C-alpha cells in the first residue's frame, strides 16, 4: 500500500493549525467535500470573503442562528455564486479605492458544487471569468446533485447510477460523458486553472495558495468523494480520491497562462478503473463491456491531456 507516495510524511504538521471552518458542521460522516472546504480555508487564510452557492456545503454550514464559517461568507442562491463573488470583488475594490475600508488584500472566492458550477451556475461563472474579476472559483465536484438526493448532473460520470439516471433492466445509469469543466475554464483564457483532490492535501493547498496570489480570475476543480451519494464506505473517502487520480479518471494538472502541467502526484502507470469502481455502489451494476468502454475513454482522454502538455511545449 502506497498511501504516503509523493507525500512528505511529516508535512501535515507544517500546515497551519488555524481552522476557519469549524467543527459542528452537519456534513455526512466521511464527507470528502467538507474536508476539501476545510483545507481550502486553511490555504486561503482569514483575509478571504467566500460567496457560496446553494448546496450541501451551504446547508451543512449555515443553519440559522449559527455558522461554521470564521471568514466572511455569503450565500444568495444556487446559480449565482460567481456573480455574487464578482459583486463582492467590485464592492471591496470600490470601497478600498475610496479609503472606506482598510488597505489589506482580500481574496474573494466563489464556491459551488458540480451542479452549481457546471449546470445551473455555468453562465454566471463564464461571465465572471470573462470579465476578469480578481477572484478564485472552486468547484467541489461530487458528481451529482447530492443535496437534493443524488440526481444526475453534467458532472456525473458515464455508467453511474443516480436517482434520475438509475440503472435498470434496460439501462446502465448515466449515458453521457462527464462534462470537461476545467477545459471550459481554460477556454476562458484565465491565468490559472487546476484540478485537485483533498486526498492529496498538500497539492490541493499549494494550488489554492497559488490561485490566491493571482490578481485575476482563477479556477480550481476539486474532486470531492461523496460516500452517501456513491454508496461507498465512509472510511474509504481518501482512498477513493487517490484511486480516481491513480486510474487517470480524474488527473491532477494545472494550466498556467495556457500551459499545461501534469501534477507530480500523477503515477507513471495508471491503475485499471475497475480498482476504483469496485467499492462504489453507484457502479456495481456495470458489466465487463461497459467497464471496457469507459476504460477506453479514460485512456484516450488521458492521452489527450498528455498531448496537450507536449503540443504546448512544442508551441513554446
Amino acid at each position: 500500500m502506497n498511501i504516503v507516495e509523493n507525500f512528505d510524511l511529516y508535512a501535515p504538521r507544517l500546515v497551519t493549525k488555524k481552522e476557519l471552518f469549524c467543527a459542528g458542521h452537519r456534513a455526512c460522516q466521511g464527507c470528502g467535500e467538507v474536508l476539501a472546504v476545510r483545507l481550502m480555508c486553511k490555504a486561503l487564510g482569514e483575509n478571504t470573503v467566500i460567496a457560496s452557492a446553494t448546496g450541501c456545503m451551504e446547508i451543512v454550514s449555515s443553519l440559522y442562528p449559527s455558522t461554521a464559517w470564521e471568514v466572511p461568507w455569503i450565500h444568495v442562491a444556487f446559480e449565482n455564486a460567481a456573480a455574487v463573488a464578482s459583486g463582492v470583488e467590485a464592492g471591496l475594490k470600490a470601497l478600498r479605492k475610496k479609503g472606506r475600508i482598510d488597505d489589506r488584500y482580500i481574496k474573494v472566492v466563489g464556491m459551488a458544487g458540480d451542479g452549481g458550477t457546471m449546470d445551473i451556475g455555468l453562465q454566471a461563472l463564464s461571465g465572471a471569468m470573462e470579465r476578469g474579476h480578481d477572484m478564485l472559483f472552486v468547484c467541489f465536484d461530487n458528481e451529482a446533485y447530492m443535496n437534493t438526493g443524488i440526481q444526475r448532473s453534467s458532472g456525473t460520470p458515464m455508467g453511474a447510477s443516480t436517482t434520475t439516471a438509475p440503472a435498470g433492466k434496460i439501462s446502465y445509469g448515466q449515458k453521457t460523458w462527464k462534462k470537461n469543466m476545467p477545459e471550459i475554464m481554460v477556454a476562458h483564457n484565465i491565468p490559472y486553472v487546476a484540478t485537485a483532490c483533498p486526498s492529496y492535501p498538500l497539492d490541493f493547498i499549494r494550488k489554492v495558495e497559488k490561485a490566491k496570489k493571482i490578481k485575476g480570475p482563477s479556477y480550481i476543480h476539486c474532486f470531492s468523494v461523496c460516500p452517501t451519494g456513491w454508496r461507498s464506505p465512509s472510511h474509504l473517502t481518501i482512498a477513493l480520491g487517490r484511486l480516481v487520480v491513480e486510474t487517470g479518471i480524474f488527473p491532477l494538472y494545472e494550466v498556467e497562462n495556457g500551459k499545461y502541467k501534469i501534477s507530480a502526484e500523477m503515477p507513471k502507470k495508471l491503475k485499471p478503473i475497475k480498482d476504483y469502481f469496485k467499492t462504489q455502489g453507484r457502479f456495481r451494476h456495470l458489466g465487463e463491456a461497459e467497464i471496457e468502454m469507459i476504460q477506453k475513454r479514460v485512456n484516450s482522454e488521458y492521452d489527450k491531456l498528455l498531448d496537450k502538455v507536449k503540443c504546448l511545449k512544442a508551441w513554446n
Partner: protein
Amino acid sequence: MAKRVGMEVAMAVAEAVGQCNIDMAAVYPITPQSHIAEHLSELIADGKVDAEFVTVESEHSAMSAVIGASGTGARVYTATSSQGLMLMHELLPIASAMRLPIVMGIANRAVSGPLNILNDHSDIMPQRDSGWISIFAENGQEAIDLSIQAFKIAEHKDVLLPVCINIDGFQLTHMVEPVEFPEQELVNKFLPPREPYATLHPGKPVTMGAFAMADYYPEMMKAKNEAIKNSKKTILAVWEEWAKIFGRRYSPVETYKAEGAEILLLTMGSMGETAEVAIDELRAQGKSVGLVKLRLWRPFPFEELKEAVKEAKKLIVTDRAVSFGGPGGPVFSEIKSALYHEEARPMICNYIIGLGGRDVAVTDFTGMIERVVQEDVKKIADTYEFWGVRE
C-alpha cells in the same frame, strides 16, 4: 441655483444616480432601460462618477452582483425592465430578506408573451410580494427626485430594505423634457455616506444568507413584514425633508381636484398627468370629478388612500396589468381590499388600459368617466373591463 435643462428622462435618471456617490453598479441592457445603463457607464468612463461598473451577463447576475457588493457595504445601483425583472424575480425576496439597501430603476415594460417592448406595469406587479419598497414616478423630474431619495430611504437604519423606482418605459424613459437637477452640495448633505449594519469584511467576519428551517422562518418573515410596514414613517420623513430642501413635495397618495368630487379616477405612473388634462376638461363642463394618484405601491398606504376616497360615490381604478383569472387588475384588488371594512366607501370599478404600450389619451379617461356617470351604479360595481380592446 439648480439649472433647468431638457434631457431624455433615462439619461436624467443616470445623472441623478451619479449624484448619489454610488460605489458600484451592475447593469444588463434591456429596452427601454438601456439608456440608463449606457449613460451611467459614460459618466463612470468619463470619471464623473467614481464607481465600479460591472457589465454582467444577465439580469440575474446583475441582481446577484449588486447583492454581493451591497453586502460589502457599498452603495449600489441597478436598473432593468420587463423580462430582466422577471429573471431577477428569484433574487428580489432574498435581497429584501438580507436587508440590503439596493436601489433599482425599473423602466416598466410589458412582459412576454408575445414579446412586446412597450410600457405597461405587468413587470412590476408580479414583484409585489418580494419585500421591496416600490414607488412610481409620474414624470422626469419625479424620476430624478425619487431615484435620489431611494438611497436615503433604503439605507435608513429604520428601513434597510431595497427600493425600486418605477419609471414608465418609453412614455417616460425616452421622453426629452424639462428637468432640474438638485445641486450636488445639497444632495451630499441630504444623502450622507451609507452606514452598513454588517459587512463582508475579514475585520469582523459575518455569515450572510444563512438558511432557516421552520423554527425560524416564520419569525423572519414577520420581521421583514414589520420592517416594510414600518418603512412608511421614514419614507414620509424623507419626503418632508426633500420638500424643505428642494421645494418639491411627495406623498404616498396624491390628489388632483379630488376634494368633494363624486367620481374619482385612480392612476399610477405616467398616466397621471394625461389624466389631469381629462379632469380639467370635465371640470370645465361642470362635472364633479377628481383624480387620485397612487405613488407608493409598497408599503401600501392604507390610511392615505382611505382618506383620499372617503367622500367619493364612485371610484374608477385603472390598471396597466392583468391578474389573469383573478379579480381584475392588481391595483383594483388591492384597493378593494383596503376599503372593505370602511363604512363609507365608493362603488369601485376597474378598467385595464394601456397594455403593451397601447396609447392612453385624454379621451380614454373622459370616456371612462362619462361611462361611469351614465351607467347604473349596481351594474358596473365590482366589474373590470379591458378598456378600448376591439371586439
